[in-house]
């Protein structure tokens, strides 16, 4: 009877300890409430029956549902993906669409100043104003482009630092795996609940960075996979992710997975989380924004220069370039670092700026054919052989040619307009060199100035479908739509995440009122067991006093 009462005291002590552990961890991130399972001891056979021998703590378990935790992790990934996208997109959105900072007002002012030259073609001040409006238009191109560049290098830095924390988390998970396996062995199968909670927190931190899948093992360890099933943590050993550089563009940070001595590229597989969001915004917003801005710069420079050269300047000389020849200097071809060492270079010339698209292109050579892949919609827009070179792809507005030779497997990244906004500049700084007069006409003629001013309203871009401002407007609205979408999707995912967390916390979270009630329950039970001991004592005293007399 005494040992029965003592078993109660010990069990309820454990239960009270667990309850107070729950109470003190009510605000601990990732903590799952723990419950004490009580069971009767094996009874003792006495003559005609069994006498109970008291209570035992059979297990202390955390209240946990793997499905709910996985759901929280998945939604954490999607939420942080959209939020990372939106954080970058909203910055582009607010400058490109801004009435004071965006390109549109500078474009308007530039063309207005052309009209002022047309109104007074021999006036040097009017010409000077035109040149300074053109120069501030160029500055707008530069500023907007610099903003995209700054965000791009910011993303690269973030990807580097995210990699460091990702590797740290992977190592910690592997360490915890080891500790859990050991602890479980030492406890004869009993779960180290708090260590498992800590590991879940780490997995969720990992899910914030990228999509993860997990697979619990029978020994208590947890395998963690990223991307499309690439293993990051297997039991007690963690792989590392290293940052590498894009094969075409060394300024772009990418990822490889290092397992032992094997290094495999993993960028294309990494989706979701902050990494997924940053990669997505770099590819689908920054790249396209820069291409769209560059396309306006190239078209403006080329179209304007062509008309400008048809006129005569104030000295009666034929007009020269007004903007620099950014349509010649900006188009760029980047060979892959994996190309055959002996392979030559691909050269690009623009042959019709009206046809240019907002895209970059990848040129692949398979040993007999070139195929030109438009990256904006991933469609093959041209196929040709070396015999066809130089090759003009009319629908894309450029001509490609080869210097040297190519070998099977060679790849080239072609960026017809990406670098134009950074490099557009004025070719003249002498106001007299503005060719306002028609060719052969005297200085008072303004017909070329009028023709230049009329370019504002002409559909000189997108295959004759839109104006300079129209093309810029498409860019602004594309950015606006993507920003809006990422905001709405982020909010939706945040809502879903909240539901998932509610469900998970509803099950596993600590409720202080419940713990208070448990505290009372176990306290009373403890008191009752103690009372049993005092009853035993009384019985014993009774016996002693009766017999001892």
């Amino acid at each position: 009877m005494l040992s029965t009462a003592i078993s109660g005291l010990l069990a309820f002590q454990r239960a009270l300890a667990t309850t107070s552990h729950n109470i003190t961890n009510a605000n601990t991130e990732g903590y799952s409430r723990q419950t004490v399972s009580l069971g009767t001891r094996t009874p003792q056979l006495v003559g005609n029956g069994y006498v109970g021998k008291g209570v035992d703590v059979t297990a202390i378990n955390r209240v946990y549902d793997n499905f709910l935790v996985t759901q929280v992790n998945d939604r954490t990934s999607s939420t942080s993906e959209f939020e990372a996208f939106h954080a970058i997109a909203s910055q582009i959105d607010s400058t490109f669409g801004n009435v004071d900072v965006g390109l549109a007002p500078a474009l308007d002012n530039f063309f207005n100043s052309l009209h002022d030259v047309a109104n007074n073609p021999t006036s040097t001040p009017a010409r000077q104003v035109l040149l300074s409006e053109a120069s501030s238009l160029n500055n707008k191109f530069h500023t907007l482009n610099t903003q995209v560049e700054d965000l791009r290098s910011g993303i690269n830095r973030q990807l580097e630092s995210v990699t460091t924390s990702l590797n740290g988390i992977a190592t910690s998970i592997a360490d915890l795996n080891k500790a859990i396996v050991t602890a479980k062995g030492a406890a004869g199968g009993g779960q180290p609940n708090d260590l498992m909670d800590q590991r879940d927190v780490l997995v969720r931190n990992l899910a914030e960075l990228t999509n993860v899948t997990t697979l619990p093992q029978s020994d208590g360890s947890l395998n963690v996979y990223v991307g499309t099933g690439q293993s990051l943590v297997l039991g007690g050993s963690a792989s590392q992710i290293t940052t590498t550089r894009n094969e075409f563009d060394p300024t772009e940070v990418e990822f490889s997975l290092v397992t032992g001595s094997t290094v495999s590229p993993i960028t294309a597989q990494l989706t979701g989380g902050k990494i997924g969001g940053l990669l997505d915004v770099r590819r689908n917003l920054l790249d396209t924004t820069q291409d769209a801005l560059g396309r306006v710069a190239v078209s403006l420079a080329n179209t304007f220069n062509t008309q400008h050269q048809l006129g005569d300047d104030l000295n009666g000389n034929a007009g020269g370039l007004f903007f620099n020849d950014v349509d010649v200097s900006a188009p760029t071809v980047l060979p892959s670092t994996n190309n055959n060492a002996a392979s030559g270079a691909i050269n690009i010339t623009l042959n019709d700026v009206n046809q240019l698209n907002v895209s970059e292109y990848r040129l692949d050579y398979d040993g007999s054919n070139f195929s030109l892949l438009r990256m904006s919609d991933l469609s093959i827009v041209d196929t040709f052989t070396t015999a066809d070179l130089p090759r003009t792809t009319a629908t894309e507005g450029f001509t490609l040619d080869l210097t040297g030779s190519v070998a099977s497997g060679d790849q080239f990244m072609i960026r017809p307009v990406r670098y134009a906004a950074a490099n557009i500049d004025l070719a003249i700084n002498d106001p007299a060199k503005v060719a306002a007069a028609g060719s052969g006409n005297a200085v008072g003629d303004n017909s070329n100035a009028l023709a230049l001013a009329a370019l504002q309203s002409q559909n000189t871009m997108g295959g004759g479908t839109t104006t300079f401002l129209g093309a810029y407007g498409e860019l602004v609205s594309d950015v606006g739509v993507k920003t809006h979408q990422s905001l709405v999707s982020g909010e939706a995912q945040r809502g879903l995440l909240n539901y998932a967390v509610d469900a998970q916390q509803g099950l596993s979270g600590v409720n202080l009122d419940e713990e208070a009630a448990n505290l009372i329950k176990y306290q009373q039970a403890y008191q009752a067991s103690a009372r049993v001991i005092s009853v035993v004592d009384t019985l014993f005293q009774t016996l002693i006093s009766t017999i001892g007399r």
Partner: protein
Amino acid sequence: MRVSTAQLQLRGTNAMLERQSELSKTQMQLSTGKRILTPGDDPVGTTQILPLNETISKNKQYTTNGESAQTRLALEDSTLGQASNIITRVSELAIQGNNGSLNATDRTIIAQEVRQLQASLMALANTADSSGEYIFAGHNVKTTPFTESPAGTFNYTGDQGQRQVQLGTSQQVSMGNPGDEVFMNIPYSGGGTQNVFQTIEDLATNFEANVQDTTALTDINAALDNFLSVRATVGARLNTIDNQRLVNEELVLQSESTLSSIEDLDYAEAISRLNLQLVALQASQQSYSKIQSLSLFNYL
């Protein structure tokens, strides 16, 4: 459903944060007066804002263009007015000089005045505007268009160019008339055309020689007619500019009101929304503090 204490607290704070973020947005809208703060707020609306701004800017520029043409045409108009006055006076002198009762001295005196008028007319034909451009020189605005050669002939060194000004997307108007059209190519009684300076020169030469000149009057009147008809086209162009200005201003007004309906804030709606959001925030704050003060531990 079971609720954890931490979650209960988190929900309460999240609710307050959300209300505050909505409030902050409404406050931004109210302080800027704009419904669309960035294109992301309304991508569809934004696509209309840029072209509308362009239309406004373009049409304001067209109005400026019109004003600059108006200045130039007004100068031409008044110059032609003065030229008409001079030619009218020449015509009076021609009638006077053809009077049979005049003697040689009288005619010489008249001839002197005719020559002065001829010089004034020449000066008018070589009028330059405030920026030093000759207004009757075609495109050759930097060279004196009308000169008299030592041999006594009158030459026009300008060209036939006419500067256009853009008044609307597809509307252009000439800012002036080439000088030969005004002063040189005037129908001549002797056949073909003759310039007005030569006509006056002939008249003066005849009167100096005490010879009556009966054909001069016809040619002088032809010159006057020419001035008047050129002046009429100038007046018509000034009218066109005025009309086009009204059209442009109307277009600007319409665009501005469309723009306003897209991007400007409906204050009544925004203020009632602000009030609603304030109430919601207050409610979430109050419910938070009420709920947080409840605990079974209070009774232990």
